[in-house]
């Protein structure tokens, strides 16, 4: 029994909540904690990553509150250092890296491919446990004694600091393992479990994005693992690998660290770009413009992203040859990103846009990605970076991408797929209000930071000269607005989980493959192997007779 595809009129009887779905297939805690179902694992990841987002947000607010006044405000200097370390580590490793792949990748990858599960379901569950174990260890280390090195734990400070850095590093190492397992699982799934007819260029673009992300995860994360081990060993035993006084090379640390951490930012942003491709077609009710270019540019970003890490070392003392090479290559990434942005805008052109909350976040995404990306290209210019390195300009740039692009993408995904995952709709007007607050708050928080950085305020500084006060106050005010927006989202989504209007199979009228299964989907996803009769993101030629559409169930 399926609801007709419609965005406006709902039949008088209204959509019915499926009696049996993955949500109530076993209701004990054991059935959730020992599940092999990729959808339940996605929900487990949702819980974990939202805790990370919440904690990271709290630390961010503490930072911003402290920066309200030039001198000490609410905490002391060492605590401040711990705060930005906590904020960075928790946000990146507990939220940004695992969130979109772990939640939406896990949930929708098999469904979009016509598979019943990922390639290795038990390893999938293991990856969640590894993620939780690593997160708990890292948090415990940060709380008891707490690292004050910043999330980048540069040597030789990180190897000589008296704070308790070893469990933090071990926690990061373990979380890295989770990342590798997830990426590995997804790559094998995409290669081996596609349903008949789903060739490589018939896959939804979200899958392409996840594929590129998974490749980066598999190739880059081991180097981070080794780096954390090296720093932990040096911190514990005083080996002198990175300490120049003992013959070591601190720039070697930076090379090793950023070899992972630069591709890591593409791990964060590529899935969000995949979400944009999905939502933008549904919102504009139009085929995607340039499917192959978007697919290939995802791989292009993943590839080129590996050759660009030295732009974090411009002022650290690496050679001029390396600096020049990395600068040139870093700018190349802008080409692939621009291809995507032009294609997305091309998709919107002459589309029939319905301005929903997911679309509001997409608008935010496009705006912030362009400005964040352009400031990135500016920072890739070595001579300019000499002025901006380690100032708030860099902070603003990466928050434009991390929050402005990735978190907007996450929120867009959360709202777009909320009806599919939980079978209920959220209140659209509250969602639009929250989206507006978030976009506004974001602007108010981070645009002053560009100005601060350009004026010379260094990052990670506990105190600052009086002349920077007004911009800092503005930034904190914006952060409060941002926080308020998030709180509103949390409230109405929590309420909608239980009391939202029943969504039906396809409330958006989207042509994505995942909208063919019921909302929420049954545990098995499909009764028999599905045959998708239309291409991905295909909005033309909608048949009058719905029985022609390849229903899965």
């Amino acid at each position, binding site marked *: 029994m399926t609801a007709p595809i419609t965005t406006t009129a709902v039949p008088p009887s209204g959509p019915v909540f499926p009696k049996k779905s993955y949500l109530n297939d076993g209701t004990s805690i054991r059935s959730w904690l020992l599940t092999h179902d990729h959808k339940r694992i996605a929900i487990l990841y949702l819980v974990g990553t939202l805790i990370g987002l919440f904690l990271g947000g709290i630390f961010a607010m503490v930072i911003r509150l402290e920066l309200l006044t030039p001198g000490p405000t609410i905490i002391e200097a060492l605590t401040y250092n711990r705060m930005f370390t906590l904020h960075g580590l928790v946000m990146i490793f507990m939220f940004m890296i695992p969130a979109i792949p772990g939640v939406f990748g896990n949930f929708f990858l*098999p469904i979009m491919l016509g*598979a*019943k*599960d990922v*390639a*290795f*379901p*038990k*390893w999938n569950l293991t990856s969640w446990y590894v993620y939780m174990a690593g997160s708990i260890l890292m948090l415990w280390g940060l709380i008891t004694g707490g690292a004050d090195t910043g999330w980048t734990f540069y040597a030789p400070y990180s190897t000589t600091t008296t704070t308790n850095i070893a469990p933090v590093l071990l926690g990061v190492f373990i979380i890295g393992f989770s990342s*590798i397992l997830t990426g*590995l*699982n997804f*790559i*094998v799934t995409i*290669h*081996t*479990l596609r349903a008949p007819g789903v060739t490589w260029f018939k896959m939804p673009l979200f899958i392409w994005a996840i594929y590129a992300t998974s490749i980066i995860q*598999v*190739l*880059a*994360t*081991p*180097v981070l*693992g*080794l*780096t954390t*081990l*090296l720093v932990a*060993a*040096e911190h514990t*035993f*005083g*080996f*002198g*690998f990175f300490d120049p006084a*003992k*013959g*070591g*090379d601190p720039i*070697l640390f930076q*090379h*090793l660290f950023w070899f992972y951490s630069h591709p890591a930012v593409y791990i964060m942003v590529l899935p969000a770009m995949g979400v944009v491709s999905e939502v933008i077609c549904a919102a504009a009710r139009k085929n995607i413009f340039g499917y192959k270019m978007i697919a290939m540019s995802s791989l292009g970003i993943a590839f080129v992203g590996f050759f660009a890490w030295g732009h974090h070392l411009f002022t650290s003392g690496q050679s001029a040859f390396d600096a020049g090479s990395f600068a040139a290559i870093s700018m190349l990434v802008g080409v692939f990103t621009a291809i995507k942005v032009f294609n997305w805008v091309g998709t919107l052109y002459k589309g029939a846009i319905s301005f929903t909350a997911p679309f509001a976040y997409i608008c935010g995404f496009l705006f912030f990605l362009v400005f964040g990306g352009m400031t990135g290209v500016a920072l890739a210019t070595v001579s300019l970076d000499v002025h901006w390195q380690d100032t708030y300009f860099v902070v603003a740039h990466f928050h434009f991408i991390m929050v402005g692009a990735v978190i907007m993408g996450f929120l867009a995904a959360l709202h777009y797929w909320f009806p599919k995952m939980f079978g209920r709709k959220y209140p659209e007007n509250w969602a639009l209000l929250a989206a507006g607050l978030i976009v506004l708050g974001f602007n108010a928080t981070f645009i002053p930071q560009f100005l601060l950085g350009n004026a010379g305020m260094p990052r990670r500084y506990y105190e600052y000269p009086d002349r920077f006060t007004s911009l800092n106050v503005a930034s904190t005010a914006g952060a409060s607005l941002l926080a308020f927006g998030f709180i509103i989202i949390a409230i109405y989504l929590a309420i909608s989980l239980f009391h939202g209007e029943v969504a039906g199979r396809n409330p958006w009228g989207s042509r994505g493959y995942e909208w063919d299964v019921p909302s929420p989907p049954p545990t*098995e996803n499909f009764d028999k*192997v599905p045959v998708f009769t239309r291409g991905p993101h295909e909005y033309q030629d909608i048949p009058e007779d719905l029985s022609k559409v390849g229903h899965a169930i």
Partner: protein
Amino acid sequence: MQSSAAARKMTPEGWLEPPPLPHHYDTAENHQAALRFGMWLFLGTEVLLFAGIFLGYFVFRTYFPEAFEQAGRHLSLFWGTSNTLLLLTSSLTVAMAHYNAEHGKNRNAFWLLLVSILMGAGFLCIKGIEYHDKFVEGALPGRFFSFSEITAPGGPVFYVVYFFSTGLHALHVIVGMSLLTWVAIRCWRKEFSPQYYSPVENAGLYWHLVDLVWIFLYPLLYLV
């Protein structure tokens, strides 16, 4: 990790029937291909894990070439070469075990795996002897260094690279031995057949990777 051997019946050929196919795979061949592919991806991550320490070797060799040469000469060529021969031979026995398991000759595979595990243990014993000698000499990393025979600057750094690379490698040897042990037990239970031999293959692939790392470590540390 597959369903327990107890639930599977013995076939007339002398091995247990293959475990049931996971519900989301269409053919056993596809499942095997996925397992193999997953293992190769994991080996790729291990290559990149060791990449960093090899990089450390080359970087510090560039900074302290004399110390690296001197220290290399003080490593025991006898033990190092023995270790190399041990690992290469264990690679052979593991490959043969894979061949046997693929043809359902479980008992042969078991003995071959046992030999491989013993060789791995031998490797670790030799490593232990070498480490002990280092402790006695004072040839230790970082601030523990007190080996007067290395006169050029950079001696402590060489031993950081040495201990970290061989230590990480030894850890992988231990993991590899554990995997081989688990698979060997399953061979004893006659679980493998031409239709199902992936665990032997995958454990073997991991062991071969351990061998690969040592093939690079041996000349760089001991010979050059």
